[in-house]
């Protein structure tokens, strides 16, 4: 039977609306999904004797500051090792601040930092090597903060970026630093 679309489709919309409203439960937002989280472990015998605590922080302001600085001051193409003349787009898949509290971290101790998020899950394949910048803040006498960057390599394990460091590296970073994972996009 022919129906006038305005009536039928309106009715369908109303019914659809009703069903959806009934089913209204908390739904995830993109912010929930892309938020990175981190963890740290000190492994091995030297880890036992080391007195160290490394924790991932939820510091949005610090993350934003690092991102702003990277966009302004860092040659991301150079950071990912793009060959000269090859135009690759480079993006940041995660920026995760860490805090280190240590009194006796041995240089040879093994420290694993892990960062995970849906962006990481989407961006990399399992076992893929990931270029990670370590943003180390320095506060000047006038209170302004500047960042220096070191490049380390992470690896994707079980969908998470794992960065394996030695105690001496972590000590060189200081008590606060942010891991910034990069992704080169071809084309």
């Amino acid at each position, binding site marked *: *039977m022919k129906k006038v*679309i305005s009536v039928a489709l309106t009715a369908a919309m*109303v019914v659809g609306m009703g069903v959806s409203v009934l089913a209204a439960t*908390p*739904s*995830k*937002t993109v912010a*929930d999904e892309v938020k990175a989280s981190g963890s740290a472990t000190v492994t091995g015998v030297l880890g036992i004797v080391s007195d160290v605590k490394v924790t991932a922080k939820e510091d949005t302001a610090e993350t934003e500051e690092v991102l702003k600085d990277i966009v302004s001051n860092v040659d991301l193409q150079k950071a990912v090792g793009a060959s000269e003349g090859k135009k690759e787009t480079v993006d940041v898949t995660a920026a995760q601040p860490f805090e280190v509290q240590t009194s006796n971290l041995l240089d040879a101790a093994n420290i694993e930092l892990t960062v995970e998020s849906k*962006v990481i899950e989407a*961006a990399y394949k399992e076992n893929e090597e990931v270029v990670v910048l370590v943003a180390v803040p320095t506060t000047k006498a006038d209170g302004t903060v500047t960042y220096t960057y070191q490049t380390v390599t992470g690896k994707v394990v079980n969908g998470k970026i794992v960065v394996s460091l030695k105690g001496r590296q972590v000590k060189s970073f200081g008590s606060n630093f942010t891991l910034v994972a990069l992704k080169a996009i071809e084309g």
Partner: protein
Amino acid sequence: MNRKKQYRAAAALTVLVLAALLLFAGGSWLEKRSRKPETRTELPQETAETMEVDGVTYRRRTDLTTILVMGIDHDSEVEAEGSYQGGQADFQRLIVIDSKDKTVRQLKIDRDTMAEVTVLGMLGNPVGTTQMQISLAHGFGDGKEESCGYARDAVSRLLQGENIDFYLAMSLDGISVLNDLAGGVTVTLEDDFSAADPAMTRGTTLTLHGDQAEIFVRRRMDVGEGTNEARMVRQEEYLAQLSAQLESRVQQDQQFTAQVYDALQPYLVTDLAKGQLVNEVWAAKDDTVEPAITLEGEHKVAEDGFTEFYPTEDSIQKAVLALFWEPVEE
């Protein structure tokens, strides 16, 4: 927070319904304006293809126009900043207009359907895809055309790569505008809304203006019994009244539809030109409308507490066949 999300979801859906009403009003206006029926825009047609499923040969339908309609949980005045604030498409429906068969087919898409979604890096570039709730696809990007494109891609991937011609997305805050353009809707309040507006006390008959319309259709938790069901009854009454008033205004004034279009423009994102949109709806006004298809599958609550809907492959296949293919008669 959850309450707010629920209000916003309901409102987004309401806006969408209102948008539909508007389009139909637009069609009516064209009917009065022109003695000749408008012809539908000719679109590039798919090459005839066939495929066999369970021993049945299917041929791709031709003369299809597909429109992804979305209700966005996002205020139009809020500019998206960064890569992740486009707003969720909490309401999604695919409308397939078959001009050859004079039939309109629809697919309801649960916002929690798990699908391959394009994910952006923190600097705004697509870095890959991963599985997440399909409503989030629109959340990546600028909240405008870019976000709609990602939403369309996600639905296309869900439907085995079928092409979607156009999208039409409306933000939730157009309700009050449409209400006022219709001259305000007169209602008798069965419940007390005075917590939101002192004039909206139980038993009062009043013509809703401005934010009152939004309060009337969105408010729930502190109104009456506070259930979704009660709010739905309210919404349907409101929509019926609004629909009648819009139709009346269109009949009185041919320019009314154009005014409404202009007024709603800030709340609408579409890649379908205004005239084309009206033409499509107008051309399909007498078509047979088939009941909307719903994907079958399983709802789960994930470890993070959010709902996930996993449609079955069989269900997706059936939907694709019903929407885009037809059995070849022996």
